[in-house]
């Protein structure tokens, strides 16, 4: 490469980096405005408008916010639900994928194809029936409709089975059987550790999916103290807090900042999970 093209490349690169930084700013500015405004009083925001400098009203805003709604409660609720969903869907999906990969039984192909077909069906299709069944069972206003259905996560089973077919050796299982290991022991001692990389990939998806789920908890939960965070955020919008912009921004910040912090530590895993999920398709 001669000097001229090198120089040209350098100029092009600096233009591109500038654009990239601009895009980073666009990604972050709404969150930055949220944090700044969370520290300003309502009057300050109304009177002075836009500023990048934080104020001092964060404690007042916090008190106003907590008078109406305990967002931390919603936070804890969301965490409980998301953790339960993650554990249950990971364990039972691994069990199902193992069952499909290791054993040859009548109808296994038909059942797996059923899973594949229903994987394409949008989640909202059965919503009306789902609500009706939950009411019949008396499961409304409990976490059962949120926590139990993910035991049957079609995409996770599909993903884990694909993964198993590339790492599982039947000789390993045969050896364990000769040693007298029970089938469930084999699953727990050999199957689960083997699937672990794929399980953790899917676990991240399950957690994020549950954490962000809005329509389902909105439909099945009625008691404010049981609300998950997204539903509580929705309720915040219609409450008196909405009159106080500073408190409102603070409420949103409380729902956002812990996730942002967790993301800083976990971004590597999360991003490689998304990449793996797409390329495996």
């Amino acid at each position: 490469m001669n000097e001229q093209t090198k120089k040209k490349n350098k100029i092009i690169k600096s233009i591109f980096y500038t654009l990239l930084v601009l895009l980073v700013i666009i990604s972050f500015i709404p969150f930055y405005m949220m944090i700044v405004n969370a520290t300003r009083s309502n009057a300050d925001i109304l009177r002075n408008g836009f500023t990048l400098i934080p104020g001092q009203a964060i404690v007042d805003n916090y008190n106003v916010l907590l008078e109406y709604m305990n967002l931390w409660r919603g936070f804890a609720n969301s965490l409980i639900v998301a953790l339960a969903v993650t554990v249950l869907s990971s364990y039972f999906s691994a069990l199902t994928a193992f069952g499909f990969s290791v054993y040859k039984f009548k109808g296994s192909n038909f059942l797996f194809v059923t899973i594949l077909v229903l994987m394409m069906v949008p989640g909202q299709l059965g919503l009306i029936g789902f609500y009706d069944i939950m009411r019949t069972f008396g499961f409304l206003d409990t976490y059962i409709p949120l926590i139990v259905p993910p035991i049957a996560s079609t995409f996770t089973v599909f993903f884990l089975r694909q993964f198993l077919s590339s790492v599982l050796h039947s000789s390993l299982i045969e050896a364990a059987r000769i040693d007298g290991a029970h089938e469930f022991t084999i699953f727990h001692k050999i199957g689960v550790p083997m699937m672990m990389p794929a399980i953790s990939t899917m676990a991240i998806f399950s957690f994020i999916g549950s954490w962000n789920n809005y329509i389902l908890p909105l439909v099945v939960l009625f008691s404010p103290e049981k609300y998950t965070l997204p539903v509580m955020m929705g309720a915040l919008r219609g409450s008196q807090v909405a009159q106080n912009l500073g408190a409102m921004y603070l409420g949103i910040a409380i729902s956002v900042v812990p996730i942002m912090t967790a993301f800083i530590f976990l971004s590597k895993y999360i991003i490689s999970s998304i990449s793996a999920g797409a390329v495996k398709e």
Partner: protein
Amino acid sequence: MQSKLNKYGYVFILPFFIVFATFTIYPIILTFYYSFTSYSGFGDAAFIGFDNYQRLLTDSYFWEAFYNTIYIWGINFGFQLGIALLLAILFSDIRLKMKGLSFFRAAFYLPNLITIASVALLFGILLGWHHGTINHILLDLGFISEPINWLNNPTTARWSVALIGAWMWFGHTFIILMAGISGISNDYFEAALIDGASRLQMFFKITLPLLKPIMLYVLITSLIGGLQIFDLPMLLTDGRGAPQGSLNTMVLYLYNQAFRVNNYGYAAAIAYGLFIITVCFSLITFKAMYRKSVKGE
């Protein structure tokens, strides 16, 4: 020994199928049944044949919701894919060797991780009329002389929702495109470089054709998700899709018919209408992408 143990297969998959049958398949069948009734959530569901579907075909609210959903998704996807593709071109260019990919990927992905409810609330006040930050900034910079009531005008409201969606999803799409590109052998690019191919030639002749399966994945998942858009329009409006119904999407309409006015039978028909639309659009997409790839060979 193996054949005797094969019955364990049923044991292993049993919990999945019990839950699957109870919480997924049965609700889908029950919803289908309700779509032929005038069920109101209480008492008996009177069978009314195809009345709900007939109503659906001529329901201007539903078709308006359909139009809004496609409108919002179209703009959203255009921007989302456009930005993600430009970023992918940039980072896959072997002459430029751009640094900081992992940082930029993470930074662009961040908005996607935030609960949509929080994003909706945040933009709801950022886009506020007299005291919204976005109007404050535009006024300070002198771009506008009067504050704009973004969420009260059908066009700006739809564009706002679409662009918020693009803002949330371009990082995700970028990650997926990069994952696809990293699967392409570097030999192709090296060879093209020796042959003196230009940046754009490399992208259009090597990267893009090899990226087709991934693009199809992005398109289909985005489409299925986009047709079900609910959280943003629900929380950016009064929950009914104002202004002038411009943010009334299909799932929002379904939700309101079921849980606001107790029209369960009709809501069930909307769910199946949405399903049929989703299947049609997915098939068209598959067909279009497939035909193109055959022609390109």
